């Protein structure tokens, strides 16, 4: 057996390895250094340790201990060097601060988002969505809804006609009648859709816009249910601190009729709060018995309530949009702001 001095070998190995670590210029070469000296099967330290069998038994603990120390020192040097190399100083290293490879982001129209948010609340309150035609008859748009054409109330929605008794619906309320005709109580629906008015474009009017109708018909439905459900909706939509006010009004197809107003508490970025004015959010009321009778139901047996609201107006209030026309211009820089 040759004269071997494992302790000296280990010391030499440590020196050599430390130098190699220092001279490694990137993570690949550092990894090579690690494999060369500490690799499990081919590494130089492992080779020395395999030679331990030839070391006299009494010296083995000393050599083993020394080997562990050397291993720890080399490992430590490797770690330190690794930290230094994370900074992309080397030419062929990756700079992870470079931008990622993106894909286009799309988004829903803000009025769709308002409709969806409103729909999700009503869905939770047991409502389903119903539809009806956008071009409808005078009967469904006016007469069935207790609005004779020779009454001033018919003026308030200046209507666009297609042929004599066919018009573009001026509100989503025709869906009330169509849903009642096609179903049996209990009815709990909302009906989002386009409506049309003989208006010119300005900051708060467009000749076509979205509306959401709501209708509940069943036995035992009262003004208290009406108030409770819409107040619940308003608080869920506008926030739990929102005050809700029901103000008497007039719609030919509801009686009693009410406008619903909300007053919101808004928290500024600095944490202070302020109260808004009363904001009008919908028209509503108990369904007029004539409407219930026109649907073929017994108004003595069935009662109900209904509402109509404009998600465009609500989106304006919610997002600080000053001009309703912005929603129809569809500038992608506007739409992007809602792509969340």
């Amino acid at each position: 057996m040759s004269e071997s001095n494992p302790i000296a070998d280990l010391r030499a190995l440590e020196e050599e390895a430390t130098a190699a670590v220092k001279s490694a210029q990137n993570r690949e070469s550092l990894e090579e250094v690690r494999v060369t000296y500490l690799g499990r099967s081919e590494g130089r330290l492992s080779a020395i340790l395999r030679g331990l069998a030839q070391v006299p038994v009494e010296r083995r603990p000393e050599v083993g201990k020394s080997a562990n120390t050397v291993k720890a020192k080399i490992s430590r040097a490797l770690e330190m060097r690794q930290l230094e190399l994370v900074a992309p100083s080397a030419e062929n290293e990756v700079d992870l601060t470079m931008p990622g490879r993106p894909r286009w982001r799309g988004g829903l129209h803000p009025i769709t988002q308002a409709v969806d948010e409103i729909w999700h609340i009503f869905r939770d309150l047991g409502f389903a969505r119903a539809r009806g035609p956008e071009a409808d008859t005078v009967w469904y748009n006016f007469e069935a809804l207790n609005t004779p054409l020779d009454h001033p109330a018919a003026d308030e929605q200046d209507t666009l006609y297609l042929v004599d008794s066919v018009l573009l619906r001026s509100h989503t309320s025709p869906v009330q009648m169509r849903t009642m005709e096609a179903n049996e109580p209990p009815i709990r629906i909302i009906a989002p859709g386009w409506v049309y008015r003989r208006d010119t474009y300005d900051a708060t009017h467009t000749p076509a816009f979205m509306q959401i109708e709501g209708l509940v018909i069943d036995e035992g439905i009262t003004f208290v249910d009406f108030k409770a459900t819409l107040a619940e909706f308003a608080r869920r939509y506008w926030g739990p601190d929102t005050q809700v006010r029901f103000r008497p009004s007039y719609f030919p197809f509801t009686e009693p009729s009410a406008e619903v107003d909300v007053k919101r508490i808004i928290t500024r970025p600095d944490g202070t709060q302020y109260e808004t004015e009363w904001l009008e959010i919908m028209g509503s009321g108990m369904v007029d018995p004539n409407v219930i009778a026109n649907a073929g139901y017994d108004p003595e047996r069935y009662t109900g309530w209904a509402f109509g609201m404009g998600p465009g107006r609500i989106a304006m209030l919610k997002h600080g949009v000053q001009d309703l026309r912005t929603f129809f211009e569809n500038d992608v820089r506007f739409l992007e702001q809602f792509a969340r």
Partner: protein
Amino acid sequence: MNVSAQWLIDLVPGLTGKPEEISEHLALRGAPVDGITSPGGGLGDIIIGRVIRARQHPNADRLRVCEVDNGAEIVQIVCGAPVVRDGACYPLAPIGAILPGDFKIKKSKIRGEVSHGMLCSAKELGLGDDHSGIMELVGDFTPGESFINSVGLNDFTLDVEVTANRGDLLSHVGIARELAAAGEGRIELPEIPDGSDLPLGYQTGAPEVEHTGFSVRIEDENLCHRYIGAVIRGVSVKPSPGWLQARLRGAGARPVNNVVDATNYVLLELGQPMHAFDLSELRGQSVIVRRASQKEAEFKTLDGETRSISTDMLMICDEEVPVAIAGVMGGNNSEVSDRTVDILLECALFDPKATRATRRELGMSTDASYRYERGVDPDGLRSAMERCIHLVLSTAGGELEGPILDCNPVPFESSTVELRLSRIEKLLGIPFEAGYVGELLAPLGFIVEGQTDGVLRVRVPGFRSYDVTREVDLIEEVARTHGFDNFPDTLGPQRASSVSDHPLFQLEDRLRAVLVGHGLFEVQTPAFCPEGEGDVEVLNPLTTVEPFLRSSLMPSLLRRVEYNMARGNRDVRLFELGTSFHKGGSGEPPLEEPHLATILTGRREPPHWSREDEEFSMWDLKALVVDIASRVYGEETTIDSVGGKCPTLLDENMCIYVRTGSGDIVGCAGRVTDEASDLPVWAGDVWSFELALPRNPSKGAEVVVTPLPQFPASERDLALLLPPTVTSREVSESIRRSAGPDLEALEVFDLYVGEGIPEGVRSVAFRLRFRSIKKTLKDKQVDKNMSAVLKRLEEDLGVEARG
């Protein structure tokens, strides 16, 4: 309706508060206030000035130099008015005052004479059109006092929004009734200064009533239930006293003269339209209420307009010609003027629907027609007439001639409505006691006349006879006066809806999510379009630019792309879900079809340092079409390049069609032609797709899972030379038919044209993946399959493998 806050305070004993508080009361009674203005707005700087002495300006014929007492001192003011009376009071704008129109008064020298302010005309103060002279104030005034306080312009005008059912609220008394609860619970008409309360006599009759040679006759009692006329002789027409002018101004009205102002006062106070005729202009001694005759085709109203009238229209006539359009406007031929001495006052009840039809046909609306359409109090005519007579007598003098003529062929009878306490509870959700219901209704003029077994008999006052005819109408009054806010709002149990969520909404929800995932923005555009883009025409469009309803969404999306590009947005990816309209049967509603459309232009991916920018191409569009179409119409949907009708917007050589499993073409997609679009020169190709959606989509087949493979697959690549007549689809179909049951997948992975292959021939590379569900396939077996494929391709299509 413009309402004077001061007038309301005078009508409702005990009512106090700022205009904002009155507005809040009204809002909660169903008559919200849209705005509050002041008739004296902007005139706070104006004071009363008394002219001590006026003399001719030494250097100007048309100017006068006045010594004016401004309360503190006597100042010199130069004035251009033709008449300035010594001792009279005028509105004075002192130095530093700002007049309407931001006109600041400065000390000045006019033709050598110093002027310390300005004496104002009505026009300069925004109080009228009269600028012929300065505004002489009639009555007792103290120099130096505030002008608006002195003349009663320290009022507030509330713009009250009155709903179409509440004609009774188109008067101060009507509004006051709703406010009574905020005061002492009653209303009281203010006294007319210098008025008398002498009882007035009547002569009644129908259809004609006559006294001392003058008669009133109603020929159409359906359109006019009642006509009351009164003759006053010897009036002197002049400006109204200050209090009356201030009242009118407070209610947003312009004073005219004492007679006209008296009629307007009654209209504003009681809601009863009144009219005054110059009696000397009437031919004969009769007023006849009849329809216009055939010959009477035109009529000049007192606004100077000549209007076409028809035989449907009710007219007020003298013995020869019409002198007023009933309920709408008086005639130019009988208007009260400065020279008028004798007048006929009219107080009548015209039919709401006929008045509405007439004023619509004439294309006009007046204070009178607005009230008649909504219904005036059929029980209030006499008190309105008496109020008006007292006003005229006190402000214009004269004498009432004989009794008042009251022609009343259809007397008004008030009605009663039965009100069940049980029904109130059923509708409103809380019980109401009979006594409390009576208390709620009484201040509004409803009288509970009796009660049997929980059923109240309620008498309806005349002014509510139009909108309160049913039990539910009374229940609304109960709820309204109880206060909507006083009902609980606790959410009770509810039964589940019998209506299912409409499947088209659910399909739209899914498509929206998918398209947003593809990086598209949803847009909303109105359905109106120009001629040529739809066949459903709007009869009464407001503009003629877009009088049709669109049959396709594509042009709307293209316009949005143009809009965006005009603003420098070059990457535009949009989609819309909307309705397509097509002509229906004659007299029928149009056919409506739900549609989805998309449009793509610009870069297919956002710019990134790792790649070159690439524009959208047909292949991006086609992949989108395949994805969307198969989600809507199922996996059996195919995309064809022939068989459909290419929309004019698209290039017919770059157009593909969506065909459902049952063979119907339901959509198309392709490149928008340059001719169809108006885009900047830098714009790239624009790609669009439109798909009809099922009106009532079915849920679609349930997914049945294919077991995952247990044996390895073998892949083979095949580069094929396709002659110009052979399509990739034909090759794919041939391969599928001939490759045997173990062909698991087939894809095109390369296309090569150029050196090494003949002109016109394409080298298309296919990758075939074979896998058996029973065993690991041997190479020999796969080779056999490939030979079969190649043999069939050569025989059927003349396609060979590339050597």
